């Protein structure tokens, strides 16, 4: 199947807030009303029962990130997932965050 047939022909996400490392988590229990998810979306919901980032979802689904993002937009709109944006690190990031990364690498 061509990837974009999964997205109803759309090639651009309606939301720009999915980066490669945006964390996605399925809402459990799912909202009572709403459309039944299509098979690929069901696969996504299964994979993000625990928090997972967009790039990992794409790798596990063997789909391009751009396609996964479109599917995630629909799931977000349907209230089936929550998203968490990556920590901002440009400019002057939180020194505690930098130290935590430093300490974590030191334990490798």
């Amino acid at each position: 199947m061509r990837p974009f047939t999964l997205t109803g022909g759309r090639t651009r996400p309606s939301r720009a807030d999915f980066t490669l490392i945006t964390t996605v988590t399925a809402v459990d229990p799912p909202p009572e009303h709403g459309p039944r998810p299509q098979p690929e979306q069901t696969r996504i919901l299964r994979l993000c029962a625990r928090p997972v980032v967009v790039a990992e979802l794409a790798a596990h689904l063997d789909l391009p990130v751009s396609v996964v993002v479109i599917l995630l937009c629909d799931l977000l709109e349907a209230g089936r997932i929550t998203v968490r944006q990556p920590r901002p690190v440009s400019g002057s990031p939180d020194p505690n965050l930098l130290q935590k990364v430093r300490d974590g690498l030191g334990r490798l």
Partner: protein
Amino acid sequence: MAGSDTAAPAVPAPDAVKILIAGGFGVGKTTMVGSVSEIAPLRTEEPLTAAGLDVDDLDGIEDKKATTVALDFGRITIGDDLVLYLFGTPGQQRFWFMWNDLALGALGAVVLVDVRRPRTSFAAIDFFERRGIPFVVGVNGFHGEHPYPPEEIREALSLPADVPVLLCDARERASCRDVLIALVDRRIAAAGRVP
């Protein structure tokens, strides 16, 4: 950002940060990702058309079957609440339009340099310099051998004095770890200078 951080999920999502591993084609980027990652490197492939490339841009590409660009990445869990992702950037220059997205929100970059052909990483260095993205240079020795001292490499690549140059072996975990630590130390030092 609409829809972000809505209802609290059952399992709190950890914070995610990323570091880029860049450098010329075949310099050992995926090897380095694999050396420090807790998982075997994962791969995503993006069709060039989906990434917004004009069809005309495919003219002159010697292998027209190469219509996807692959991105290899790995993961290091720092703690329950923090995960570091390492992305190996596509080596071919014609895929650089992908880099802007990749570089956005990165903690910084490691530019790997092949000791036998250091200039193939020059464009990557230029990319991060122009965008003011903090980076360190890791000189990947062929079979772990380092015929040149770091200062000679620095000179060959016209690197400013504040860019750390480390000799490394992309196959060795400890060696790659030290390069990553040098990058984070550079960020910590820079943060200390900002009031």
